């Protein structure tokens, strides 16, 4: 049982990393959102698996919230925003896709390099899911990288969300989730953040006739 569940967990973690890579490779906005939804669902399933092992009730709740908010509500909101501001359908990366993929590969290696002592050497962390830490850090870094390498405001929001997913994975993997109240607060914050950012994306579009953030260069020294 334990064997098979950890296999599932590892598989889901790998799926999350994979979706992140595909998101880097994709150049259609809609597929980005869909990939994000997929990733969130995978994350929710992973949380459920963990919950099934540890039997911690609040993780189930968190898993449901993840699937509900990140897998459904937020993608829907993003699609709504994209629809409203009628942006082009292309992603418009700053760095070419092959190079990005290469860099993200490097980032994954770096993430593993960084977390390696924590996972294997120190032995302080005893969770069965600790191997996922490297993947979660990789997802955080790649999400971060997305924000740097993409032009559009919406893609930046999605990069941030990807980072959050990575974080969430980390939380699950090394601590079996944060205390409930904290989790709830975090979800609330993320939701509000996306809302506000979406609003600003509107305002940017209205003011500049574009959601390209590289033209936001009035303020400089």
């Amino acid at each position, binding site marked *: 049982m334990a064997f098979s569940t950890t296999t599932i967990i590892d598989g889901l973690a790998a799926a999350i990393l994979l979706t992140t890579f595909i998101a880097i490779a994709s150049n259609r906005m809609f597929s980005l959102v869909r990939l994000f939804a997929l990733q969130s669902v995978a994350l929710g399933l992973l949380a459920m698996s963990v919950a099934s092992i540890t039997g911690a009730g609040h993780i189930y709740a968190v898993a449901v919230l993840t699937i509900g908010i990140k897998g459904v509500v937020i993608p829907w909101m993003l699609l709504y925003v994209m629809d409203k501001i009628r942006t082009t359908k292309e992603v418009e990366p700053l760095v070419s896709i092959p190079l990005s993929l290469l860099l993200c590969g490097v980032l994954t290696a*770096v993430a593993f*390099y*960084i977390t390696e002592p924590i996972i294997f050497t120190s032995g302080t962390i005893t969770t069965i899911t600790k191997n996922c830490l490297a993947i979660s850090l990789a997802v955080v870094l790649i999400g971060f990288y997305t924000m*740097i390498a993409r032009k559009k405001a919406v893609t930046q929001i999605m990069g941030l969300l990807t980072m959050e997913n990575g974080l969430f994975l980390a939380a699950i993997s090394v601590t079996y989730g944060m205390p409930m109240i904290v989790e709830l607060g975090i979800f609330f914050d993320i939701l509000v953040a996306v809302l506000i950012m979406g609003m600003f994306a509107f305002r940017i579009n209205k003011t500049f006739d574009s959601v390209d953030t590289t033209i936001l260069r009035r303020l400089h020294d």
Partner: protein
Amino acid sequence: MNGQELFGLFILTSLLGALASLSMGRWSKACRVVSFSFSTLSSMLGLALALEVLLGSGTVVLTLPTAVAGFGTFSFVIDQLSAFFLLAISILGACVSIYSLGYTKEYEGKYSLGTMGLLFNTFLLSLVLVVSADNAILFLIMWETMSVSSYLLVMYENRKQDSVSSGLLYVVMTHLGTALITVAFIIMWLNTPGDHSFDFSAFRELGALGAMPELARNVAFILLLIGFGTKAGLVPLHVWLPQAHPAAPSNISAMMSGIMVKTAVYMLIRCYFDFLGTWDTWWGLLVLLIACISALVGVLYALMEEDLKRALAYSTVENIGIIFIALGAAMVFESYHLVDPVANAHLGDLAALALIAALFHTLSHSLFKGLLFMGAGAVLHATHTKNLEELGGLAKRMRWTGVLFFIGVLSISAIPPFNGFVGEWLMFQSLLLTQNITDPMVNLLLPVAVAVLALTGALAAACFVRIFGATFLARPRSRHAAEAQEVPRSMLVGMGIAAGLCVLTGVLSILIVPEIDKVTSSLLGVSIAGKLVNGLILSPPAGEFSSMSPLAIGVLLMIAIPASLAISRFLGGRHKVVTGDTWDCGTPLTSRTEYSASGFSEPINRIFKSVYRPHIEVRTEYTTSSLIKRRISFSRSIEPVFERYLYAPTIGLVLALARRLGFIQRGSIQAYLAYIFVVLLVLLVVFR
């Protein structure tokens, strides 16, 4: 009234004066009178306080609540050394206050006199508190209060771009100095015994040999020298001085040049002789070296300067150099004396002599430089120009100003029996009596200081002939000068007191030197008054070396001048004095044919060409024919060596670096995120 009450009253008066000026800012005239009456009054109180301590014995102590526990006791103590500087501050403060009554009139309606009164009173107060602070932090606070108030006063004519940039240079330099002083104090604090203390009483315990590690002592010495040297105007830290002094209103220049730069002398004396102890001979030699350079550079630049006040400012650099020559000599002697007080007892005497010379010259310089700046202010007041090439002929138009300025010029040129001469005489004596130092290298270096002192004196005389000549003599070179009128009486009174004291402190130096000896003996523990003064004669301590009596010289001159007058009357009888034109070789003379100030200094410019690196530009405009010239214009500029080769590159470097760094804030959010990304990765990889 005892000393403490007097001190309290002094502080109260100053504060009241400051507040009163601030609140009366609306009524210019009343404000002018009130603020400077208050400052005169407080100066008088300061004078009384100084005399009480100097003539009596013991100290006056005033304690404030401490800012932060751990900072020690915030108290003001007036001991002999403080009292001496308090004396100088009060005298000049009183003169300048009276002078300002009239001088500031021209600011009515242009700038706020309330501000002037506020700042002037604060400045005066902070000067006194600087020389009496008895705690390192309290001292720093007062020191910067002094700097800031003087900075604001320099910027008083704040709509002139010139004042603003000069003020900035000044405040930045002085801040730099303060930073170094602060570090030095912290180093000293770290070495105070037991539970570290910022009190000066704890600092005094550092003077024992070995109380501080060698490195810490030397670092503290260097930092203090640079820090206070900045304020004093030692080369190459002097650059602010010729900028700030001319930009300030003249009453402020007088205070700054006359007394503010001396507070650095005060504190260096206290730090070196009172706290650290001058155990190393090289300290004194270094001071001597820098002092020699300062004296020479100061006077050389003063000779070339066409701005009256700037020339005076450079002359301050020179005189600070002279004071530091004596100070350095005292440090050299004291270093031998400290090591072996018995065998080198005579060197202890010499140290005392050199220190007396330094202090005497400090007092004299505050008087005559104050006087000269006030005189320059009077000239400025009457002619609205301080360009030497536009002045001239004022001796006839401003008779009293001319006479008073002349007394200042005589004093600063060390003409006997004025006070400037007495100071230099004492210095020469202390430098010449060095045969008994066992180190031959030191023996060789001291004559160089003598040579520099002599050279400086001669050049200074040339400089002041030029300044006085160009300003007051011959014909006016511009309409401003031609229409000049005598200044108001209060200004003359202020200058008159200073001029009178220049003469008195010279002629009656016999009375003053013993008092200064009390000051130095409180520091060095050696009193030489008994050896120095016999009746009317000043003679240095080493037996029959030499003697001099300023009083006798004064009396002799006073006899000789009427005598020569009488003789010339007597010989050949009375004859008429006819007034006529100056010999003009047949072509009428105009003010344009006079020797100009630049012309006057041209030969010296030639000798010291390698120092000045003059840049001469002659431009000729022709008429239609290339043979007939329409006009020829000539301009000569000397290279500002320190500004160009020391300061400009430093500033340039900082600016270039800043500009380089500017690329990081280009507005791209992607780039901004990338910085965070990179920092994060680097830290994680380094510290994983």
